[in-house]
């Protein structure tokens, strides 16, 4: 279910929050988002002063450092009409944690509230925000597409149905559910390096679910889960890979004519 009473983002300029991990490791995913949004006639700008949302510090229990980083986010996106990000986890940080992080702060508090109210996760923006599910995409060969429902998006933003609808809108793509698609992949930020054996065991369960499924490719909305899952799939010598939803959508649009 979409969160009620969110102001419609239709017709507004999108400020892209690409996230630090996409910025440094998967910049093409950011470009995929831009391609898709511009194809839909949305004006996209990229505030160059952006860094990270501060979640690593926040989840580490260090709210002072988290707030310092979050302030840079708020400075970078000051004046934004709509913020779109290809990450359920980072969107959750802005939407759910920024307001509490700056609660009682007369300067940053209202800015945090404002950022929270205009931030959308990518699939949520397309489906709930713009009301689009069919982008007119087509894959060259038929593929069964599994999903990994990344935890924060799934449980705090109620994501899941949006990505499925968008995949359903691609010709030659068929949603093929992976068992336990709603179970954590074991990434958890610092958790993965703080408790590597536990994280590795959780990852192995996820890899087993994927390799035991019929999916040719697994789509997720978070680059961090993608890094974890692909690291595990590569290690287990599986040919299946996890891709970001934006990249699958962008791939399906290559060579397709833009809608008028």
């Amino acid at each position, binding site marked *: 279910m979409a969160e009620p009473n969110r102001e419609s983002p239709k017709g507004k300029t999108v400020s892209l929050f690409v996230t630090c991990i996409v910025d440094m490791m998967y*910049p093409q995913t950011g470009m995929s988002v831009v391609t898709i949004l511009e194809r839909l006639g949305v004006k996209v700008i990229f505030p160059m002063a952006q860094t990270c949302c501060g979640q690593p510090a926040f989840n580490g229990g260090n709210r002072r450092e988290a707030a310092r980083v979050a302030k*840079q986010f708020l400075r970078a996106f000051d004046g934004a009409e709509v913020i779109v990000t290809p990450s359920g986890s980072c969107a959750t940080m802005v939407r759910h944690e920024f307001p509490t992080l700056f609660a009682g702060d007369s300067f940053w508090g209202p800015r945090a509230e404002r950022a929270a109210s205009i931030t959308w996760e990518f699939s949520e923006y397309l489906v709930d925000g713009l009301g689009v599910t069919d982008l007119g995409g087509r894959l060259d060969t038929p593929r069964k597409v599994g999903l990994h429902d990344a935890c924060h998006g799934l449980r705090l933003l109620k994501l899941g149905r949006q990505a499925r609808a968008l995949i359903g809108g691609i010709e030659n793509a068929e949603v093929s559910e992976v068992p336990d698609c709603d179970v954590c992949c074991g990434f958890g930020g610092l958790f*993965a390096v703080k408790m590597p054996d536990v994280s590795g065991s959780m990852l192995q369960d996820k890899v087993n679910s994927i390799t035991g499924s019929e999916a040719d490719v697994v789509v997720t909305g978070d680059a961090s889960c993608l890094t974890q899952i692909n690291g*595990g799939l590569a290690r287990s010598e599986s040919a299946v890979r996890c891709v970001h939803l934006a990249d699958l959508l962008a791939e399906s649009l290559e060579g397709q004519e833009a809608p008028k």
Partner: protein
Amino acid sequence: MKVESNNFIELASIAIQNTEQQAAVRRGTRNGYLNRLAAFTQFGYEHGQHLRMQAAAAKRRALKSLPDLLEEAEARMTENGITVLWAEDAAEARHHVQEIAARHHVKRIVKSKSMLTEEIELNDVLQGAGLDVVETDLGEYIVQIGGEHPSHIVAPIIHKSKESIRDLMVEKLGMPFTDSSGEMVAFARQRLRPIYLDADMGISGGNFVVAETGTIGLVTNEGNGRLCTSAPRVHVVLVGIEKVVESVEDYALLTQVLPRAGTGQHMTVYTSMINGPRRPDDPDGPEAVYVVLVDNGRSAIYATKYAEVLTCVRCGACQNACPVYRSTGGGAYGWVYGGPIGAVLTPLYVGLENAKPLPYASSLCGACKQVCPVDIDLPRMLLDLRCDMEVRGYGSRVYGVGLWVWSFTQRWPWSYRLAAWAARVGQRIMGRWHPGPIGAWAKYRDVPTFAPKTFHQLWAEREEVMSRK
């Protein structure tokens, strides 16, 4: 029980190597999870959510007026002929039980399942005093003969395979070799039956205390609870002070929710409401009933931002849902309670300094809150505990410095660009050398590479091309 929670990481690593235990825990938790899901969605998703929200409201209401409700419960129970005793800590609770045993010349005790008695290490003390104590819940019985501790709140031997239970029963009880779990259960039943009848005292926990009627609510599945609470001369209930609820109506609601969450049942096989000792016209029942209301750290939690954790009904659903628990089992948490609820309760009960890894024993995936029948925000509490760790200076210094350096790079665009450049160049120089945290990562996964150009750079190039057009 010695607190070993500071060894969580090591204990977890050992548990993960134990493939037989891994298989048992995964199977058990998965079944529990799916059964819960089926029970809560049988009448539709919305119905299940309404049940959860009503249950949460009932428990939170009770928590809010806890002091008053406890007094009301004491008054009603006393009117019902129950002797009510208060215990501030584990030692006082144990002392009460020992005194009651002495007063009634008790030699043999049967116990129904109770996590609180694990918390206060009751068995050790009673056995040390020369009393015979027999656990009668089948799982707890196996735990007792194996000299172990329960690894799950409602399924104490979830970590054991059928075969290992069989071998234990053959070794310790002289059971004839069998592959049939039915025969194993029948053997245990035959073995336990005369023990109930010989027992002088029964000890049980309590799932709920109904304030308005002074009733102890007990939900069980094996019938052992009824035998323990009605066959022996004396019945002692040990119950945490947080178990009190306002009304019979709330009790009726909660007895629908607890079994659904714990085992996927609509109701447990036995749902008992114990109101006091045997009355003159009763055909059976104990001569004396005692209720020991145990604090043991609960009122200290009541005064903190973690008070809501006291609404826990001990169903074990969060353990079944937790991917960390599924990987490690309950033993790794190093105290009575494992899983997400244990990761929150243990530091609060035994002190953060004695359970430092537990707030971090979670990927913060949120599955625990999602399945909690009273909607306790366990992920939020884990985050708050991590904050407490930092504030009290218990956090790892290495990570603290690392985090500060990281935060520094994220606070300004220039430092961010510098860090992105350094990361890329650093990775190229280090090649396949993976020190520290990168090594921890590389143990189970391939290490991702930084892109040749950041999105920032790609965007700047694009802007330049577009401005030339």
